[in-house]
């Protein structure tokens, strides 16, 4: 990645002293005076708060400020839209500040719209009704009642009242003897869709999204609300919005929330539907107009279908700052421009890196589209207030991906999980499960208890008889292994005792061999063992021979079932053997009996 300078862009203008700080949503480009000379309208976001001078709304022609006026507050979004089809088509600018939207025509403010108030709690209304008529002594009780309410669900008036000191309260209440209780949410983002015809300079509708998760679709002609909807069924705070379509025909609105959900709202829906849940909130999001996929920039660049299926994802080398779609219909490609914190600006077509260039400092806001008389211009605003304007060369060819050594991540759709086919039996069984869920559960639970009892019984049995190769005793954890060698009638029985505890030494152990003397002759009946050290197995050999009759036959009452030898491991002063195990002796090879 040595190639940081791209040959596809012309550096048209660069103003290092523009002093403009803004974000992508507060940038809008429009043909402000209807002379086919597109201008940039931005609302300044002061980085130093509190800033002494109020935030500004500026119009740039190239890098020259041609209009600069004060805004009543920090804007959250700037949109340009067309009201009607009357010629000349003059766009109006909508700037959202707090709960209100200021509309500018010809850069003159001409309307202020405030979104409807949220519901006021009846309790609050009741308290205020009493406050106005009550005497000062009773204020305390009423205010305490007010404090029981959730602070965020109070009107601003009540919020202020609570924060006042006792002495100031009386005056405040007297001032507001006719309280107008309103609870206004803040507008977090706005976007536009077309009203009827999806063509440039056709009338628009404004989509307003508030922090309280309400979506309003507004007809600009009469400033009336056409449609109201909720972002999603659960509590979420919207953050970013992207939409396409026209109000009359069909439209989709994609909303990203601070909780990491991405929701979709279609025409006539009253509530959005969550389609994707991200690990962390999106930094930037866009519904691409061409292939109608949703591109999300979070920690990585991800692309989802409208159904919420991840199409691809791409890890980014650095912290991402912002993103904007770069549609190039004349080349038949649609790209995404991503700015990284290290000042690198990259262009991706799908998940292929196509082009990249380096900018002096971190890009904060981006816009791609018409500017001035040019069709394809990239506007970049950096964190230090630089305004950079780059024009795409008409000869630019983006058909070949850039060769980089960047490892392309595996597409998630390629990772096939081996899910077997749904067989007919599977479906039938599932139906049975669904229909008899309660009965199945009851049977399972009662049988489970029975099995637990069974297991407990067997365990007790094993503990009682010591019939195990393990000694369950915590003081003497030992393990016995036996091996029987030989073809018979003489066998070599090898017993291996192992201390399986980590630290403890087991002492005073003995082995007792218990066999039917009519069947087997054992060279030693018992052996006293040396202390058993952890990790070192102790091997003891026993010579066992079958008591053969004079005709070279097995003892008459010896069968397969009773050809066993019991091995007991006992510890001094313990009444019960630690291990009482049985070795099944193999049958001797009878030809051998004949020949020996």
């Amino acid at each position, binding site marked *: 990645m040595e190639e940081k300078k791209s040959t596809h862009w012309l550096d048209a203008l660069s103003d290092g002293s523009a002093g403009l700080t803004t974000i992508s949503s507060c940038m809008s480009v429009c043909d402000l005076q209807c002379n086919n000379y597109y201008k940039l309208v931005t609302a300044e976001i002061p980085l130093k708060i509190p800033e002494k001078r109020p935030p500004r709304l500026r119009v740039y022609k190239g890098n020259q400020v041609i209009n600069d006026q004060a805004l009543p507050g920090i804007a959250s979004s700037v949109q340009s839209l067309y009201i009607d089809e009357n010629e000349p088509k003059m766009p109006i600018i909508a700037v959202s500040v707090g709960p209100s939207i200021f509309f500018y025509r010809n850069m003159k403010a001409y309307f202020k719209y405030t979104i409807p108030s949220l519901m006021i709690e009846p309790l609050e209304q009741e308290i205020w009704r009493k406050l106005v008529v009550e005497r000062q002594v009773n204020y305390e009780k009423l205010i305490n009642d007010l404090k029981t309410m959730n602070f965020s669900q109070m009107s601003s008036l009540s919020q202020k009242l609570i924060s006042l000191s006792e002495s100031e309260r009386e005056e405040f209440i007297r001032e507001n003897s006719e309280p107008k209780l309103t609870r206004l949410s803040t507008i977090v983002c706005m976007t536009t869709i077309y009203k009827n015809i999806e063509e440039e300079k056709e009338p628009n509708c404004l989509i307003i999204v508030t922090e309280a998760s309400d979506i309003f679709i507004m007809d600009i002609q009469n400033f009336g609300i056409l449609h109201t909807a909720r972002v999603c069924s659960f509590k979420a705070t919207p953050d970013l919005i992207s939409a396409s379509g026209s109000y009359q025909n069909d439209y989709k609105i994609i909303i990203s929330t601070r909780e990491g959900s991405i929701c979709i709202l279609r025409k006539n829906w009253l509530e959005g539907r969550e389609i994707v849940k991200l690990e962390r909130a999106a930094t930037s999001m866009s519904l691409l107009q061409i292939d109608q996929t949703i591109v999300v920039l979070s920690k990585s660049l991800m692309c989802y279908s409208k159904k919420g299926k991840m199409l691809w994802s791409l890890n980014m080398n650095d912290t991402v700052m912002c993103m904007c779609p770069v549609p190039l219909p004349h080349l038949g490609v649609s790209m995404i421009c991503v700015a990284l914190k290290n000042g690198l600006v990259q262009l991706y077509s799908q998940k292929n890196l196509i082009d990249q260039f380096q900018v002096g400092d971190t890009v904060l806001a981006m816009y791609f589209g018409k500017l001035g008389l040019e069709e394809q211009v990239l506007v970049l605003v950096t964190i230090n207030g630089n305004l950079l304007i780059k024009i795409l060369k008409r000869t630019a060819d983006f058909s070949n991906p850039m060769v980089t050594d960047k490892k392309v991540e595996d597409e998630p759709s390629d990772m096939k999980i081996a899910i077997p086919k749904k067989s007919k039996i599977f479906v039938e069984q599932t139906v049975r499960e669904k229909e008899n869920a309660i009965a199945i559960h009851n049977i399972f639970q009662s049988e489970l208890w029975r*099995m637990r009892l069974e297991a407990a019984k067997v365990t007790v049995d094993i503990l009682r008889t010591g019939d195990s190769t393990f000694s369950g005793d915590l003081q003497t954890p030992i393990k016995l292994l036996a091996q029987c060698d030989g073809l018979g009638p003489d066998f070599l029985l090898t017993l291996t005792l192992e201390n399986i505890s980590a630290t403890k030494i087991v002492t005073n152990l003995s082995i007792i061999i218990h066999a039917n003397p009519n069947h087997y002759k054992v060279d030693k009946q018992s052996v006293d063992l040396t202390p058993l050290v952890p990790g070192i197995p102790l091997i003891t050999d026993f010579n066992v021979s079958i008591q053969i009759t004079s005709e070279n036959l097995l003892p008459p009452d010896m069968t397969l079932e009773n050809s066993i030898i019991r091995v007991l491991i006992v510890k001094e002063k313990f009444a019960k053997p630690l291990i009482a195990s049985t070795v099944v002796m193999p049958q001797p090879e009878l030809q051998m009996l004949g020949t020996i």
Partner: protein
Amino acid sequence: MMDPSYYKALSLFRLRKYEKCIEICNQLMNQSPQLQGPWELKMRAMTQRVYVDDIEAEDDGVVDDPLDTEILATAPKPGTSLRTATAVKTGQKTAATRPRTSTGRPLTGLARPGTMQQRAGTSLLTGNRTALATGRINTARNIRLGSASIFNLGDNTFNMSRLNPSIFATKPAVAKILFQYLYYCEGDIKKSLDLCNAVMELNKTEAGWYWYTQKGRCLIAVGNARSAEYFLQYSMKLLTHPDTILLLTRAYCRIDQPLAALEVCNFGLQKQPDDVALLKQQARILELIGNLPASVNVYKQIIKLDAMNTEALSCIAVNYFYIYQPEMALVYYRRILSMGMNTCELYCNIGLCCLYGGQLDLVFSCFQRALRLAISAEQKADVWYNISFIGLHIGDLDFARRCLRICISLDGGHASALNNLGIIALKKENLTKAKMYFALAKKLLPENDEIKHNSRLIDAKY
């Protein structure tokens, strides 16, 4: 005229009432010891009574021949050797999840000798009972079956130690019967080999395919598979008898050439298409070299020809189980059950299929039946091991641990149970205990990947 009692004996032989047949033959021979008919008949009856299909009952394992001086490539190409752990091809991910035997082969569906050595080492003492089969020669199984029965009868009519093979070699009709008697009933491989040699010496090249095949059989039995290959190949040139082919495949498996064995199988199948025995052998070899999908396909072919073939049914069922289709496995197991197989293992498998297939109400009744049918300690241990999975499934670790403890008490060599106990101990943050369990499991099954991984993990972590 034929003696009516001899005729009766013949009839009894045909009716497979061998004991009675032998009785009458004894009477006849006591009357006139010179008669050849009853003598032959008795030999045949005794052979039939203890006859085991040694092709079925044989251990297919590769034998390390101490006399084998040829040096084998230490790293054979994957899929060409039975010595190496199975070649798992890419895209065959399901095979990797199938449990392996101690020799690293995928677990098969039916307990055949040599395939079910999941339990490490036969030399381990188990709680209640243990069959201590020590490292004897491979024919031990056949020998014991045959010899024990004679022994109990106390019948020493035929004194084979003084038998002169060259006399019998001249009588072709008797020679075959005698050979079978020697091989299957007496289990005297050396004598039967002598007889083969005598016949072949007498007739030179005209001895016929039968004797070449039998010589190969004897040579395999004594562990000389390389020489057996020559005789079996020769026999196959004379006649492609399925027995010869099966013996030849076994010889190839013994000398670790599964691909050659498969080739022989294919050749045999060209001559005798749809021969179930050959198909079965093919499927088994494919399974041994780890080509499970191909093996299952062959088993499915067998099912089409012989819908009652338990081995094929259970192998297909096991395959379905391990490709996450327990409901399909259940269908096959139920078919085996309806065929009258009423064993502990089958109920255990059905129980597991029900558990994984979500048919929870049937799980316990299956396992309870399996417990009731379990006789040996190993069987009981296996059932308890499988019951522990219910505990793991419902998150009742104490129940699972209890089941596993029972399993270990019954069978101290159950490495998987030890491994799972280790994991439960780790979950309960009992580190020293977990370490102990993993160490024990590793000692029992040092080649098992899971156990290796677990003990490595715990060593690295703590």
